[in-house]
């Protein structure tokens, strides 16, 4: 006979299937489906593209879309469909890398600075300054000072995205640190590291994941813009921005050079945005959109 009655075990919440969830949030479903397709396209690009994206064929230049070249050919006779397929790789790689990097940096800086007042004052002034510089100009400046490579592009896009993430994490930390369960943890002798990792970090994840999807969308757009302006992905790599930069000269004769990469680009960003909006509604209805 136990002296203390065991607490009643909570009834397990009925698990709802993916089908239910997708029907409830059709926009998330649409975003997820498009994005998954795009990831598959990026991974299996060599099997999907029916031509080598770099294969030059001067006799076949500027051909409109046809049965052999679905999206036509560009000014060097390269297959636009193959290049658009391979372009998925650059965009998704840059988008995911920037989202991951800025989340990692934003989380660590935001968590620590939310807890250490002295550091916070300095960090926030730096973040304010960084936010005052338009993201595209900051990225342009950084790229103009280093050699063109995908890595440079990722760094140059990540740095302007960091302040918003830091501010978000910090604001969550500032509201959490006033709450009783933190006091309880402190009085039980928990150190700063334990409080941050066990009590604060899990509570920041929902808004951070939502913000990370918006960062991913904006990173994909900025990569395309930088490449389009000639300050991004090296021109020998097929990316949608590069394709449009090369196609712009032929806007009067070859609409397909601009339309298809633009379509792919918009579709991917739309998918990520839909996913983000859906996640926001499910995870954190209070989070306001601040995707600049």
């Amino acid at each position: 006979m136990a002296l203390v009655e065991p607490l009643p075990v909570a009834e397990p919440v009925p698990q709802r299937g993916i089908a239910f969830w997708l029907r409830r949030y059709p926009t998330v479903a649409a975003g997820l489906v498009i994005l998954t397709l795009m990831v598959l396209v990026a991974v299996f690009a060599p099997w999907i593209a029916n031509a080598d994206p770099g294969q030059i064929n001067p006799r076949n230049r500027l051909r409109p879309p046809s049965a052999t070249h679905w999206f036509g050919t560009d000014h060097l006779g390269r297959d636009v469909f193959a290049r658009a397929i391979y372009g998925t790789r650059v965009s998704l790689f840059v988008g995911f890398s920037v989202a991951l990097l800025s989340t990692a940096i934003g989380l660590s800086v935001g968590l620590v600075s939310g807890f250490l007042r002295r550091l916070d004052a300095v960090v926030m002034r730096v973040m304010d300054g960084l936010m005052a510089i338009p993201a595209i100009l900051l990225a342009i400046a950084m790229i103009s000072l280093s050699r063109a490579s995908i890595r440079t592009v990722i760094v140059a896009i990540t740095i302007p995205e960091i302040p918003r993430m830091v501010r978000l994490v910090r604001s969550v930390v500032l509201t959490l640190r006033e709450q009783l369960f933190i006091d309880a943890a402190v009085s039980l002798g928990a150190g700063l590291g334990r409080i941050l990792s066990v009590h604060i970090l899990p509570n920041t994840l929902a808004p951070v994941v939502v913000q990370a999807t918006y960062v991913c969308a904006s990173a994909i757009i900025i990569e395309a813009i930088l490449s389009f302006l000639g300050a991004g992905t090296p021109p020998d790599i097929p990316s949608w921005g590069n394709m449009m930069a090369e196609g712009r000269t032929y806007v009067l004769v070859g609409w397909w050079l601009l339309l298809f990469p633009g379509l792919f680009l918009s579709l991917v960003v739309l998918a990520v945005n839909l996913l983000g909006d859906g996640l926001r509604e499910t995870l954190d209805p209070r989070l306001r959109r601040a995707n600049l």
Partner: protein
Amino acid sequence: MRRSAPRPERCDGADAAAMLGLILRRIGSTVIVMTVVALFVFAMLHLAPGDPAAVIAGDIATQEDIARIRSKLGLDRPLWEQFLVWLGHILTGDLGRSIFSDRPVVELIGQRIEPTLALATTTMLFSVIVAVPLGIFAAWRAGSWVDRLVMSFAVLGFSVPVFVFAYVLIIVFAVNLKWLPVMGYVSFRDDFGGFVRSIALPTLALGVTYIALIARITRASMLEVIHQDYIRTAHAKGLALGAVLFRHALKPASVPIVTTIGIGVALLIGGVVVTESVFAIPGVGRLTVDAILRRDYPIIQGVILIFSGIYVLINLVIDIVYTLLDPRIRY
């Protein structure tokens, strides 16, 4: 923003002093922000991998070129001295000289600023005129198909990059329908009709994201106001719908809207660079893009400082105006 017990709407001495203190603090933090911006711009050149002089000189430069650039930019002096000298120059309005053309950066930007300001201004006006009523309408009919349409448009506006939309407009309206010129810029001082026709497509292209942003925040902040009692009272006493929505509801909802318009200027500035490039408008954006290709860092640096300054200043003015106008912020 703290809401205390209702106070008499009277500006006494203590109140004025508190307001002045608030404004001075805002100005102070603006100065700090601009100092940090300057530090960043300066540090970027020196933190970049490799010798900054060699980076600026480019891949085909000789040793003499690099040495010439180094002494021209003062890169052979100690770092703190370089920063102070550089900061002193900026404060007296000297942003250095272009490496490519050897002309003062201030002069180069001055020559190109008119089309940029014109495009930014028309876009801002156009966007606010379109987006605020759209947002109000969506909030008023929240949940209806109109609302869903406006919100879908907003998501689309965030997703289609400026230059993609710009080319769709060019292909449809300039190449196929031939209604408007494909590219170029006509100054409003030379020919106003030509100016309007040359700026129409760029304004539309650049405006889409901005409209999406403003419409969304307008809808959200109107929704918070629209169900309050005094709005129902205004309705009940027979005021026209327009008067209720635009005068009674929009006014208290306007703080987040105007703040977002101010923050969105950063987006607008980034977009201007791209839009000018697409439509071959000879503005500051084109100057910047040409500078990237020539690795003319002093120009890029000057453009960043000026645009960040404009951005920070606009937001400072918005803050101060609201501190003066809105009693909820003062208390």
